C-alpha cells in the first residue's frame, strides 16, 4: 500500500481541468460531428444498397462489412499513416463517422424495410417520382424507427474516443491516464472520467427518448 489515501482531493482538482479540456476539445467534438456524419452517410449507404444495381450494391456491402467488422483503432492508424497532410482530429472525426455509418446503415435498412409495402404502392399509384417517394414518404417513416439506435451509437462512439490517442489525439481518458502516468495516481482520473461519461451520456439517452416521443405521428 502507498502512504497516500485512496482518494486525494488535491489530485482531483488538479486533474479535473485536464479531463474537461480533453473532453471538450476531443471527446465531444468527435462524438457530435461524427454522429452527424454517421447519420447522413449511413442513410446514403442504405439507399445505395437498396436501389443501386446488384453488382454495385454487392461491392458496397463487402466494403461496408469490412469496415464494420474490423477494429476502429486499426482503421484510424491506417488512415493516419496514409493521409499525412490531414490532422489527427480530422482523421478521427472522419473515420469515426465512416465506421459508425456502417452501423447506422444497418439500422436504416431495418427502418426502410419496416415501411409497409403499401406505402411504396401508394406512391406508385399517385405517380410520385422515385426521389419524392424517398424524401417525402419513406425516409420520414424510416427515421422514426432509427432514433433510438442513433442515440445508442452516439453513446458508444463517445466511449470509443479513447482510441483516438493512437493517432495523437488526446481526449479525456488519455489525458487522465497521462496525468496518472506522471503522478502515479490513476484512481481520481479514472473515476472522474467515468463520472463525466455518465454525466454526458445519460442526458443523451434522455434526449433520445424525448426525440423518439416527439417523432411519433400524433401531436
Amino acid at each position: 500500500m502507498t502512504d497516500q489515501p485512496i482518494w486525494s482531493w488535491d489530485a482531483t482538482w488538479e486533474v479535473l481541468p485536464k479531463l474537461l479540456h480533453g473532453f471538450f476539445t476531443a471527446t465531444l467534438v468527435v462524438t457530435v460531428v461524427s454522429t452527424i456524419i454517421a447519420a447522413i452517410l449511413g442513410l446514403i449507404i442504405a439507399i445505395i444498397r437498396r436501389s443501386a444495381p446488384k453488382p454495385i450494391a454487392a461491392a458496397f456491402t463487402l466494403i461496408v462489412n469490412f469496415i464494420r467488422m474490423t477494429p476502429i483503432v486499426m482503421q484510424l492508424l491506417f488512415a493516419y499513416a496514409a493521409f499525412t497532410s490531414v490532422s489527427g482530429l480530422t482523421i478521427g472525426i472522419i473515420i469515426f463517422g465512416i465506421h459508425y455509418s456502417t452501423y447506422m446503415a444497418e439500422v436504416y435498412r431495418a427502418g426502410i424495410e419496416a415501411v409497409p409495402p403499401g406505402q411504396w404502392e401508394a406512391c406508385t399509384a399517385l405517380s410520385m417520382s422515385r426521389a419524392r417517394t424517398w424524401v417525402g414518404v419513406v425516409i420520414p417513416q424510416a427515421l422514426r424507427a432509427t432514433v433510438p439506435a442513433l442515440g445508442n451509437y452516439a453513446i458508444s462512439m463517445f466511449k470509443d474516443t479513447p482510441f483516438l490517442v493512437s493517432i495523437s489525439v488526446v481526449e479525456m481518458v488519455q489525458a487522465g491516464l497521462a496525468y496518472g502516468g506522471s503522478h502515479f495516481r490513476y484512481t481520481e482520473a479514472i473515476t472522474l472520467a467515468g463520472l463525466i461519461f455518465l454525466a454526458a451520456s445519460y442526458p443523451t439517452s434522455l434526449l433520445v427518448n424525448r426525440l423518439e416521443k416527439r417523432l411519433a405521428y400524433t401531436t
Partner: protein
Amino acid sequence: GCGSGGDSGSNGSDESTLAKLKDKGTITVGIADERPYSWVENGEAKGATIAMHKKIFKKMGIDNVKVEEVDWNSLIPGLNAGRFDAISAGMSILPDRCKQAAFSDPEIMYTTSLMVKKGNPMNLTDLKSVKKKGDVKLAVLNGGIEDGYAKKMGIKISQTVKDSQSGMDAVSNGRADAFAMTAISLNWMAKNNPDAGVTTTPAFTAVIKGVKQVGAGSTVFRKDDKKLLKEYNKILGNTITDSTKDYLSVVGKYGFTKENLPPKNVTTKKLCAGNLKDLQ
C-alpha cells in the same frame, strides 16, 4: 504472451514478500515494451533492465525473473494491486511518483535527444533550438517527461503520441519535425529502423530557467516492501553501479554509455525531494 495476471506478491507485511520471493525462487516484474530497457521478443524477455535484474535477483537468491508485459499506464496500478512485484522499465524518479511507490537507487541517468528527419534539415540540436526556430512541429510522448519540459519552456507541442513507435512514424512521414524523448530509446530505435529515414541529435540535458533537468530512472517496488528494497539497493550498489566496467558489461550492449551511469551525488532521496538545484 502469458494471459492471466500474476498471483505473486501481496499487500501484506514486507517480511513476507521478500521471504516469499526467495522461497519461490521467482519474481515477477512488470514491463511495458520500452526498448532498449525491457521488452519481450518471441517470448523471451530482453533489455538493459532485465539484464540487470537477472543478475541482481540471482544474487538475492531469486533465480527466475518472470515478466508481465503490460500497457505503460498499467505499470503502477498493477504493482500496487499486487499483480507483480517490481517494475523493470527504467522509470524516472519524480517527486509525485515517490509518494505512490518506492524507487530503488538510481540506475540510469537520462539525457534527452531529438529524433529528426535524416540530414536534420531544420538543424535542430536541443529543445532550446526548437524554441528559437519557432515553427517546429514537435511531438512528445503522452505523459512523458519531455512533455513537461516543453511546456515549461513555452514550446508549442504539435502532437502527443501514444508510444515511441508512433513518434518515429510521425517524424518519418512528416507529421512532426522532431520527436523529443530519452536519448537511449531514440538511438536504439534509429539504429534498428534504418529504413525509417530518421536520425537523432546528440544527447543533451534540458535546461529550464537556468536549472539543468537532471533525471534518473530506477526500479520500482511497493512502498511496503522495505526489506526487499533495501536488499536490492545493497546488491545494486555492489555489483552494477559500483564501477563503469561492471555497469557497461551488463548494459553496454543496449547502447548505454558511461554517461548513463549515475554519479554518487545523485540520490533517490534528492530526486524525490524534487530540488534539482542540489544536483547541478
